């Protein structure tokens, strides 16, 4: 076994005084050996990113390292001067971030940004820096590296930008690569490719990788060693094979149990005789984007000839990668945007051609749960007002609306006192419960959940899915569940619709579509699910 390259000992990072806990990270110790992949797993607020930022000297000024030591190749980082530490960053240890869309400077070409790393460490950089850039871009699998080096980041897709980040991080052959949720913002197939790339480069260069993730599927795919963090504490560490199979800490057990796994979908079979609530027929929506100042017009078929039905008490999952048109589909059904052609038959009536004034009376019957629980609730309104404003606006007496709001708050598992409080006093999961209660205030016939659990931690995700499931059993509401996560879809959906570039490529029962995919596209989606290999057994 190789010597540890990175040793973190009793690291304690203090939070500002007014926070609800004293330390972001407390007494955390671990070591990273050369040529190994260490995964740090934990939910938001567990301190995993703070630890990474502490190593890279990127802590915000409000966080200070109270005690502990970080040693890289035997050198104590915390006692080095700023200039000496800068000599290490980018050369011996480098980092890639979660969101590739914002991690590159929009005003510099990709090549210049990679060269900048080499210019910052001239002693370690090769003579021919342009040549090295081409070499790196080739190595991370980008097409046409010469052209790519001259591109500005906005021209690249998320996956391509993450490859550029990796190329930049590897420019000077560092000993340690820190990857802070590098695939979280990417589509499943892209995620699988990037994971594979990191894994391959790590093995070839015998590099140590510290990989931060909240996704146990990803852990199962690449980790040698695992650390589990909870609220700033390290609760468990050990070889991946141990921790994943025989977790000892109760928190790890809970986390693992909450991980969405690919279900066979056998648990749920929709009632084929239930009345149809929503029937979409040949729905089409085309966007016209003006190409440039020269006025070339591009046509994007966001939704292209899509048809399917949703029955009472049934959940239809709409899955696909970003840009597949699944969110546009949701907005079309909500009539937030107008369709170009096709029918949207809701409760037996085609609502597609209806003018807004006429459709308004039906709006209460179609409700939506949004993705971002932080952005979808008005921060200046109390929960009570958020819940009652809709019904009261439609003429429900306030007393009655209030009663219903109280009942629903109880139903989604919130205290009655929540009625008087404001959104910022609640966590993401609690806010999503408020969002669900808000959608249910009207007794809708159809609920559209657009990535409703994507922004939540796994354990919270599991709770919200369970809540939605219970509510559906009680109310027999029809649900369209839009998600990019096949594991989530496999848990909650009776039927699954797979979308690719606006087209519906496959539709059928969850068990059929995900268990026995009929198209190459669905097969590639299923194969790309993190942890698919091991989690199924």
């Amino acid at each position, binding site marked *: 076994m190789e010597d540890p390259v990175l040793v973190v000992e009793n690291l304690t990072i203090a939070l500002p005084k007014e926070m609800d806990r004293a330390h972001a990270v407390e007494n955390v110790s671990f070591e990273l050996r050369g040529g190994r992949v260490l995964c740090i797993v934990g939910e938001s607020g567990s301190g995993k990113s703070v630890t990474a930022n502490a190593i*890279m*000297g*990127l802590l915000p000024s409000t966080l200070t390292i109270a005690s502990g030591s970080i040693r890289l190749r035997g050198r104590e980082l915390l006692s080095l001067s*700023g*200039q000496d530490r*800068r*000599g*290490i*960053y*980018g*050369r011996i240890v*480098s*980092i890639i*971030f979660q*969101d590739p869309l*914002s*991690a*590159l*400077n*929009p*005003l510099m070409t990709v090549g210049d940004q990679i060269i*900048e*790393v080499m210019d*910052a*460490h001239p002693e370690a950089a090769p003579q021919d820096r342009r040549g090295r850039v081409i070499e790196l871009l080739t190595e991370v699998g980008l097409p046409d590296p010469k052209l790519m080096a001259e591109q*500005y980041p*906005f*021209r690249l897709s998320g996956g391509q930008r993450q490859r550029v*980040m990796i190329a*930049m991080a590897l420019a000077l052959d560092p000993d340690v690569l820190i990857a802070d949720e590098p695939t979280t913002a990417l589509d499943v197939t892209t995620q699988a490719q990037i994971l594979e790339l990191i894994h391959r480069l790590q093995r070839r260069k015998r590099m140590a990788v510290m990989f931060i993730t909240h996704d146990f599927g990803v852990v199962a795919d690449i980790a040698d060693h695992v650390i589990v963090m909870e609220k700033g504490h390290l609760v468990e560490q050990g070889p991946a094979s141990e921790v994943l199979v025989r977790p000892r800490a109760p928190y790890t057990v809970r986390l693992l149990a909450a991980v969405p796994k690919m279900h066979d979908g056998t648990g749920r079979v929709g009632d084929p005789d239930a009345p149809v609530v929503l029937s979409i027929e040949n729905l089409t929506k085309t966007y016209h984007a003006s190409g*440039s*100042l*020269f*006025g070339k017009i591009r046509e994007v078929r966001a939704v292209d000839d899509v048809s399917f039905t949703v029955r009472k008490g049934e959940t239809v999952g709409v899955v696909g990668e970003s840009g597949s048109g699944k969110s546009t589909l949701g907005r079309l059904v909500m009539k937030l945007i107008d369709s170009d052609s096709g029918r949207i038959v809701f409760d037996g009536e085609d609502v597609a051609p209806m003018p807004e004034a006429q459709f308004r009376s039906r709006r209460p019957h179609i409700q939506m749960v949004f993705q971002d629980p932080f952005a979808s609730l008005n921060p200046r309104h109390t929960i009570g007002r958020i819940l009652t404003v809709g019904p009261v606006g439609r003429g429900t007496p306030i007393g009655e609306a209030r009663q219903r709001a109280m009942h629903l708050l109880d139903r989604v598992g919130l205290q009655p006192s929540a009625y008087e409080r404001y959104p910022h006093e609640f966590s993401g999961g609690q806010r999503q419960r408020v969002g669900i209660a808000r959608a249910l205030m009207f007794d809708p016939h159809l609920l559209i959940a657009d990535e409703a659990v994507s922004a939540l931690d796994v354990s919270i995700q599991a709770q919200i899915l369970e809540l939605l499931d219970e509510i559906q059993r009680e109310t027999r509401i029809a649900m369209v569940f839009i998600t990019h996560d096949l594991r989530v879809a496999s848990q909650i959906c009776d039927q699954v619709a797979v979308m690719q570039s606006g087209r519906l490529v496959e539709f059928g029962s969850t068990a059929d579509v995900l268990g026995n995919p009929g198209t190459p596209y669905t097969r590639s989606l299923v194969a790309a699910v993190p942890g698919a290999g091991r989690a199924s057994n």
Partner: protein
Amino acid sequence: MLRFLLGRLGQSLILLFIVSLIGFSVLLLAPGGPMSQFALTPGISKAELDKIAAQMGLDRPILVQYADWLWGLVRGDWGNSFRDGRPVLEIIGGHLFATLLLMGSSTVIAVGLGTWIGIKGAVKRYSMFDYAATVGAMIALSIPTFWFGLVSIYIFSLRLGWLPAGNMFTIGDQTVLDYLHHLIMPSMVLALVNVAIWSRYMRTATLEVINQDFVKTARAKGLSPRRVLMKHVVGNALIPMITLAGLQLPTLLGGALVTETVFTWPGMGRLFLDSLGYSDYPVIMGLLMFSAILVIIGNLAADLITAFVDPRIRLA
């Protein structure tokens, strides 16, 4: 690109037409008028007044006067001053240098100082410097320019005697140094409000950029704090500011009017006020159109520069 420029040109022409229409109408509605000063001459007869009016072309119907003036505008003949009969363009040209000198130097001060204060305030947020800059900007924005001008004349000219109280140069001593000496106070006074505005916007723009991931990326590369700030933070923060610079041009022109009057600066602002006193309509209209053109060009330039420095706009 050509399409864009042609489109903007068309918009600008329509805009200028509307401005001319409004300007002309407002002057029509104004009390007095060019004939009022002659009317007070003792012993002047109605016939004599009509003769003067006919000489100035004021006896024709309003629409004809307007059409005639507009056609002249297009041909480059902006009419002659009622006051001394010189061509309007020649008069404006004579005052142009003074105003451009004042506006230019005050812009350099405003942008330079404002940018520096804004960045420093953002980097050291909630520091003493930041609070002082915030309070300073509030004070600067609340003080009327003319009052600030008068107070600085009182202090620096009357009390201390360091700087001249007005004019652009000392007669008989037109060296560059003499110009600069005269320029200090008016340009500072004119810049004050814009320093305040610019520094506030720059602070916000910097704060928006400073927490972006690509700044973290730059720091993680091991770049020096100075390089991170100048190349990655300031570069990106300045882009929205270019548009702001274009939008601030009218403020600057308006400010120049007051400042030039306070400091007896021989520029377009003073010319405008003098012409108002004489009801010198051709000159007033000329100045109005000239400022409008200046503002349009400034905004177009701001858009072009933004497109030039931001690849997302240049190439998209």
